Structures are given as C-alpha cells and as structure tokens.
C-alpha cells in the first residue's frame, strides 16, 4: 500500500477495501450513485467489477441488498453520504440489519460540516446519535488515515452490524503505522490532570493541537479519543473525570445525543462532573466554510481551548 500519510480519507477507504476484496471473495462494495465521492470509483469498479454493486439513487434498496448479501455470508460495505446512510434509511437499518443481525457495514461519507458546499440539506449532525440509539449497532468515527485502515480491517473481520463515518478529504494524521483499533477502548492521546477533553472522528486532530497549545500555557489536558462511540469505553472516561473533575466534549455533530450525549449519560450516572459539550447546537447546517461554521456554532480550536481553560479552573 502507498503511504497513507498524505492520502485523502476516501482514497484510504477505497484502497483498503480493494485490498480486502483481493484477499476475501466475500467482501463486497455497494454504492448508491456516489462511488466517485466515496472513492471506490475507479479503484474498486475497475479491479472488482463482479463484486461492485451500484444500486443507483436508491439507498433503502442498497441497505436491503446488503442485508440479503450478508445473509448469504458476504460482507457488504455500503457507502453513501452520511445523511442518506443514516436518517434516510433508518428503518431499513433497524429491521433488515440491526434487528435481523445481518453483517452489513454502512459507511456514512462527508459527515457533519465536511459536507461543505452541499449545505444544510445534506449536512447531517445526527447520524451518531440516532444510530447509537439502535440496539446491535456499532458506531465508529476514525480520526485519521491509519485509524481508518485499522477500522476497515476490523469491520471486515467481525460479524457486527456497523456504521462508520468517513470524511472524504485529507485529515492530518495523529497516529502512525503501529496504530491499532479496538472498539472497546478509547485512545489516551495525552495524559493530563486539569481537564479531560473528549473527541471523536474529524475533531480529534483539532483537539490534539489544542491540547498542545494549552500545555504551553500550563493547562494540563487529558485528551481521550473515542474511535467507537458504541460500544463506549465508560471505564476510561470515568477514571479521567475522577482525576480532572471537568470534561469538555467536541464533535462534528449535534451536541444532542452523540458523543457529548454518551459522555453525559455515563458521567451522570457514575461520576457527576461539570461538562461542556461542543458541536452544533440544535440547529441545521448551511452552505459555509469550516471556519464560519466553527465560529458560528463554537466548536473550532479556539472554542475548544476556551472551554478547556474554563473547566480546568472551575471544574473542581
């Protein structure tokens, strides 16, 4: 495989999936007329045309076809924009995948604000929240190309119905070739003592930078990255919250029900702690730049830093 370091995430997805298809005749690639956006066209289209299925603009049917393929022992990866891969096909996932326990892997591309110029109609801030609420679903959001590769390999090797967010463009690497993925384990990015910063997916690279800057100011941030929001590693969160006494969450999602919701549920029951959730408040998206949306909704690096400073001084 080429060096992942500078690859777009969708190129990593297509490359790793293609490798899995090289080695396992049961792995399949399903798309709903967005194969170029997902990166699987032309790589998978050209190299495995027999196991590439384009369902057309028919996401519900794609999920059902995935379920039928999985019943036959195949391992279908079904990709489309996250808004269509989650809210549009919620009932299809619920019944034909989660309830029926079929081994379908659903890839929600361009999550949250990374949908960019497609704007509010396509920006989905709820996919983690609504799929996390579904029994028998795993919900993942990788931080960088190395974690994405490990995650796809894990998904192909497991029989677990799973939803994964996939940012399409480049993401600054925070891991290296040695990184592994365990859905039961949060990743300790940095140990600290003043405040706990919890992130997932696209926001983790930003959180790493913030923690670095704050260290220079004398604020000791303990940074936890959650590649899996479900299952959720509650033990590591509770231990960190007990140590720091204040928790900031940040995600490329609504602050209702997603990573921040999961953190509040765990700490509310097991270790009541002052918490600040950063992300999109109860609002729709819009056509805008990342910086504009970070500033409007208050979850960019400077807002993360401000929340960490506040919780570090007042959380205990």
């Amino acid at each position, binding site marked *: 495989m080429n060096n992942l370091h500078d690859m777009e995430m969708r190129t990593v997805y297509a490359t790793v999936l293609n490798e899995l298809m090289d080695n396992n005749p049961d792995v399949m690639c399903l798309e709903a007329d967005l194969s170029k956006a997902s990166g699987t066209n032309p790589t998978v289209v050209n190299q495995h045309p027999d196991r590439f299925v384009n*369902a057309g603009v028919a996401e519900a*049917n794609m999920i*059902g076809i*995935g379920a*039928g*393929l999985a019943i*036959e022992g195949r391992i279908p990866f079904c990709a489309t924009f996250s808004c269509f891969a989650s809210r549009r096909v919620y009932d*299809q996932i619920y019944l*034909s995948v989660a309830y029926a326990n079929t081994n379908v892997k659903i890839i929600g591309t361009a999550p949250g604000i990374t949908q960019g110029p497609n704007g509010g109609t396509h920006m989905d801030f709820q996919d983690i929240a609504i799929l996390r609420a579904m029994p028998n679903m795993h919900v993942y959001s990788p931080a960088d190309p190395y974690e994405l590769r490990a995650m796809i390999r894990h998904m192909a090797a497991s029989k677990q119905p799973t939803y994964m967010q996939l940012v399409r463009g480049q993401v600054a690497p925070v891991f290296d070739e040695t990184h592994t993925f365990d859905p039961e384990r949060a990743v300790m990015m940095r140990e600290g003592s003043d405040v706990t910063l919890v992130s997932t997916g696209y926001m983790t690279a930003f959180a790493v930078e913030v923690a670095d800057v704050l260290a220079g100011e004398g604020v000791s941030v303990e940074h936890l990255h959650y590649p899996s929001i479900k299952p959720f590693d509650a033990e590591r969160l509770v231990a960190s919250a007990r140590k720091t006494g204040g928790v900031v969450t940040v995600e490329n999602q609504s602050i209702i029900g997603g990573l921040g919701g999961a953190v509040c549920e765990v700490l509310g029951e097991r270790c009541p702690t002052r918490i600040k959730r950063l992300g999109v408040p109860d609002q729709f998206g819009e056509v805008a730049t990342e910086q504009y949306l970070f500033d409007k909704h208050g979850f960019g690096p400077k807002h993360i830093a401000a929340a960490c400073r506040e919780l570090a001084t007042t959380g205990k």
Partner: protein
Amino acid sequence: MSEQFNKEDADRTAAEWRYIITDMICRAGSGHIGGALSLVEIMHTLYYRIMKVDPANPAWSGRDRLVLSKGHAAPVLYVALAYKGFFPAAWLGTLNANGTKLPSHADARTVPGIDATTGSLGQGLSVACGMAKSAKISGGKNSVFCIVGDGECNEGQNWEAALFAAHNKLDNLVAVLDYNKLQIDGFTADILGLEPLTDKWKAFGWEVFEIDGHDWDEVCDALQKAIAVKGKPAMIVAHTIKAKGCGAVEGKAESHNIRIPDQAAYDLYMGGLEIQEMALPY
C-alpha cells in the same frame, strides 16, 4: 423438493392449515389472519412441489430461499415449516406467547427454515435481490422466492428493488404478489390504486404471470414457468381472497388483523372454517 401431488390430499392439508392458522391466532388473542389464509395454496405449493429445502439442514447452501416480505403473514409460513419438519409442530401453539420462538412477524433469528427477518413492509424484495445477486456471483443454482403483499406495493422501496432486479438480470428471483385487493384501511383500489398492476411490473422489465392463487395447477405451473425465465426476474400476480376459508371475515378488510376477546369470537371465526374438528399438534 417436489413430492407426489394428490389434489384431494392437498385440499385436505390446506383445510387443516386454515384450521390451525385460525386456531393459533385465536389462542394468541389477535393476529393477521387475512393475509395468512390467502397464501395457503401458494405456500403449500412452494414447500411441497417447488422449493428444494432440507428440514434437517435448514442452512443447506444449495437450498432455495424464501423471503416472506409481508412478514405479518408469518402464521402460514410457520405452519408450512412445521409440517415440513423444520421444528416441532408443538411450537405452533406458542404464537405470540411470552418468550415464543414464533412472533407475529417472520423472524429468521428464532425460526429454523426462515431465511430473512421481515415485518416492516417494502424491505423483503430488496433483501431477496441481495440473495439472488449473491447466487449470481457464486454461480449458485438455487432460486430466491419473495412473497409481497398488494398493500405492501404502496411502499416505494419495492419499486427500487424492481428496477434493480431487472437491471441486474436476476432471473433466479421469483416474486409472488398476493393480490387479495384489500389492505388495512379498505380496498387497495380505494386507498392507493395499483392498477394496471401487471403492466407496471412488465414496464419495470419483469416477466409477469397472472393466476388464480387458490388454483393448485395454476400456482404450480406459474412457479415452474417463472423459474425457467431467463434474463429477467419473474413476478406472479396471484389473485387471491383475503381470509379465504374463514367465513366470518373472508373477503373483508377487517380480516387484516382480528381480535378474539372471548369464546364467542373464537366460535365465530372457527365456525366458518371448512373443517370443524381436527387433532391439533399442540
């Protein structure tokens, strides 16, 4: 696997199935009797004259598959599977009981011989497409059967699957449409008209057969012809009578889901059946 067919025996078995289905639902206190009773001849023909299955090995990879997309008709599938020996017939007495393996809607997780879990209408034909596509990739010789309801055809996902099956030339896929003309709120023609129904499926690229779904010979003949179709999927539009054989509600929309609150209701529904007594296996 095809077995020696005797019409009198089949008629007797169909009457027994209708008795058991009605009794199961009455014991449960409520249930979808109409769409189960309209499928008796079709389900019997599939399991006794058409489908290759092995009750001793329900997961046999060479078996024919069946997706009951109108999952609420599960009681007729449960009876067929029990008669074939997929599970003890005593289970039939547990429909909808707490902790049962036989819930109201077809459940592949708990019932040996069921290939797909269904219940939310419109999803089964897509699942069947996936099964058929898989067989096409691997060169499997099995057929995939899918039973859809007429009211169910209101769901747009069916038509997504119809496009897909034709585009992908899934000639190993055979669908049967239980056209009993009724859905929960009334006649299909009044709620959301389907006609011209056979023309619609033809226009979507399917080979279409139109039969009397209660005529043994027409059902078997159409299924055999549908299996033999090459290059495209096949749809059998089967004209049926909802709740056929249950005199109290036969041909009535209220047969979709009946409630049996007391002995009088039980007597009403059982009283209209062709046979009035049989030894129940549970």
